[in-house]
């Protein structure tokens, strides 16, 4: 009997089918590796079995019993715990205090006083049992990232953990620390704990897993025994082999056109982007592909000037900039469509008109006042061009649908008459129609000799839309492929090869 078995799990977000008919099982004392490209549904799956999301359909069996997990508390009660990518520790608390978050703290009667001695004794005993070296007197903020991972792991072990979910646990660990983690995992499985190991790092998956489940577009593409799995097989399962790049999309060979944007050996102060170079020619849609955390957004931000540049230069239409700022970027005709339109693209409480004209308010201002009639006229024109569905230019953008909000973001950019577009996940959470419209619009812009730098985590979209693709891995550009020739397998191969 399996420890956890899910059958026909289903989850929708609006029109988006995040999970469909997912069935898989996890055995006690075994490691199940879970892989899949960005957006394949791994995170959604984890959130459902830990009670964060409620599934729209399907059933979950725990030790053969049908269970409904409606809150993280339910999951904890069963013994399901997650080690998060973003750690849930309280920075100012010591290791001991953090360990006891969410568990019963040993106290004197009526909770009058914490029994510190008892608290420490139990923690030390566990530490010894796990064979860990960790100074628990240190506060969480004083610990290094791997120490924090160990602390979180210990915290999970304080509780009665039957199933431990590890989501990209080695992202911030050195090789040596990774070894410690792996040893702990082996210890846990020996004690009968089941592990769900989610990672982009294939060699770890192959090393640890007893079984490997592959997700593709919200479906379980199959579960392999470790013996029968190899990199090529897994990647071909991750990519839709039936999928064919839309032949109807026109492509440009723009290599002879003048260079609009040239990024030379650009790196950022925070080290998220390592010296990277790329070029965008006039008339070209250039893609940047990479796995989550590869530094896609960070690279765009560095080019646009919202992330501090360490070294290198950004050359726009032949003019070199060693320090960028949004003002300079806009002046040079470069606009940025940010990934998250709610937090970065729009001022949600303002009207369509106020949002659209924000970057070029001086254009509508006589110096003393904003010429609202001129402003309204221009905004209505653009709403019509972009087919924005709204009551009128005075509607608050928070009342619009996601797709219409994104059209406002694009209209705002287009009003600026830019020569360069930096798009970060421009079609995220928009409906299919709007998505097509955005693709068409960008192609039209390219045909007018403008340049587009297009970041998306959707591998099919990038193959459909882009003339040329740069692959980003761990902050560096590692490869450049012509869009027409590239396949999803090829892209993923480059991403996963370390």
């Amino acid at each position, binding site marked *: 009997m399996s420890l956890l078995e899910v059958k026909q799990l289903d989850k929708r977000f609006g029109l988006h089918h995040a999970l469909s008919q997912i069935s898989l099982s996890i055995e006690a004392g075994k490691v199940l590796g879970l892989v899949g490209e960005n957006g394949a549904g791994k995170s959604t799956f984890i959130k459902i079995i830990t009670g964060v999301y409620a599934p729209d359909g399907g059933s979950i069996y725990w030790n053969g019993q049908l269970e409904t997990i409606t809150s993280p508390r339910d999951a904890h009660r069963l013994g399901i715990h997650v080690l998060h990518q973003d750690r849930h520790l309280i920075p100012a608390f010591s290791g001991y205090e953090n360990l006891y978050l969410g568990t019963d703290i040993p106290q004197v009667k009526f909770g009058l006083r914490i029994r510190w001695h008892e608290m420490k004794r139990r923690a030390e005993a566990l530490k010894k049992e796990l064979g860990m070296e960790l100074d628990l007197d240190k506060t969480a903020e004083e610990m290094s990232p791997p120490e924090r991972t160990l602390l979180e792991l210990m915290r999970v072990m304080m509780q009665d953990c039957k199933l431990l979910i590890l989501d990209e646990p080695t992202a911030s660990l050195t090789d040596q620390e990774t070894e410690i983690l792996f040893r702990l995992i082996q210890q846990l499985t020996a004690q009968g704990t089941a592990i769900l190991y989610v990672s982009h790092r294939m060699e770890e998956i192959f090393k640890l897993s007893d079984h490997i489940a592959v997700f593709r577009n919200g479906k379980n593409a199959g579960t392999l025994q470790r013996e029968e799995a190899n990199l090529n097989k897994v990647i071909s399962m991750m990519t839709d082999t039936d999928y064919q790049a839309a032949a109807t999309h026109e492509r440009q060979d723009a290599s002879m056109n003048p260079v609009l944007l040239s990024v030379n050996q650009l790196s950022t102060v925070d080290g998220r982007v390592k010296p990277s170079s790329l070029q965008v020619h006039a008339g070209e849609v250039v893609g940047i592909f990479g796995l989550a955390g590869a530094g896609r957004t960070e690279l765009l931000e560095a080019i*646009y000037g*919202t992330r501090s540049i360490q070294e290198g230069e950004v050359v726009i239409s032949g003019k070199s900039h060693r320090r960028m700022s*949004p*003002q300079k*970027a*806009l002046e040079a005709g470069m606009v*940025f469509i*940010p990934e998250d339109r709610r*937090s*970065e*693209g*729009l*001022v*949600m*409480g*303002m009207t369509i008109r*106020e949002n659209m004209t*924000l*970057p070029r*308010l*001086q254009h*509508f*201002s006589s110096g*003393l*006042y*904003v010429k609202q009639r001129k402003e309204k006229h221009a905004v*209505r024109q653009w*709403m*019509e061009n972009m*087919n*924005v*569905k*709204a*009551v*009128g230019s005075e509607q608050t953008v928070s009342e619009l649908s996601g797709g219409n909000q994104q059209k406002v973001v694009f209209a*705002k950019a287009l009003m600026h008459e830019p020569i360069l577009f930096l798009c970060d996940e421009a079609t995220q959470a928009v409906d299919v129609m709007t998505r097509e419209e955005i693709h068409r619009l960008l192609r039209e812009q390219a045909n007018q000799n403008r340049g587009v730098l297009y970041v998306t985590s959707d591998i099919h979209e990038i193959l459909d839309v882009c003339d040329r693709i740069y692959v980003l891995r761990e902050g560096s550009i590692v490869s450049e492929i012509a869009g027409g020739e590239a396949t999803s397998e090829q892209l993923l191969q480059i991403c996963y090869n370390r």
Partner: protein
Amino acid sequence: MMETTKITKTSSSVQWSKLFRSYGTVIAGILIIIMFSVLNPGSFATLDNAINISRQISFLVIIGIGATIVMSVSEFDLSIGAMASLGGVIAAKIIASGGPLWIAFVVPVLVALIIGFINGWIVTQFRVLSFITTLAMSTVLGGFTFWLTGGATIFENIPDSFRYIGQKSLGSIPMLSIVMLLVTILFWYVMTQTAFGRRLYAIGGNESASRIAGLRVKWNKNAAFALGAALAALTGVLMASRLGSAHPTAGNGLFLQAYAAAYLGMTSFKEGVPNIWGTFVGAAIIGVLANGLTIMEVPTFMQDVITGVIVIAAVIMQRLGRNAQ
């Protein structure tokens, strides 16, 4: 043809609730006025008293507008009370030592512009919470004011000319009321009709989006702090002119009331957004309450309790209205 889908009004109750949310505070204000008029027809509901109220609220309106401007960029300036005190003291010092009248008005405002800019600079450059920065600045200014005055009220050698604006009337309208109206209209214009005002609201609404849209976020925030402080100092000077003297803590009490007025104002007209006419209405409600309750001989401490409860009630009402949406 532009594709617009007209949202049909589903029911009249929706319109009523929207009307109530936008003008609920105004309606409440009118109800309060009616209540006092019925209770004290002879003393409250007179033209003289209305004029009197307009003078009484002038300080609160002007300093409240200062608070509103800082709030429009989603920041707070807790030093406006101390700034008002300092402004009054500087003006009185200048005029008492024989300085010209216009200098006594201009210098405090210039000093405040600089101090406000420093507040803004600390907040934007070092990313310190404006709460902490301006709280500390308030202490600094208070200390400075005491040093200037030795803790005593300045009342000697104040010429009559300095009292003109504070005490005289144009016809039957007090000069203070006229200044209040001019300041209100000016800043209504600045905040709603100019590119500068639009940028402040954009930054307050979403700082990252504003930065990406190419706005100079730091500069604009600094300017908002500077304007807020300048209006506080102006309030202090006008108070000194009204009283013919300057006390080192004269303006301190205005600070909490200024935010009460601004918060009451956020519940009217532009819902949830600090706005100039809203603050005007908020200050007027607080002023009418103080006036009416005094006429009814309600003790001051009770007045404070009632005013506080009304502010809390207004903010809760607005929240409820929003949730119902």
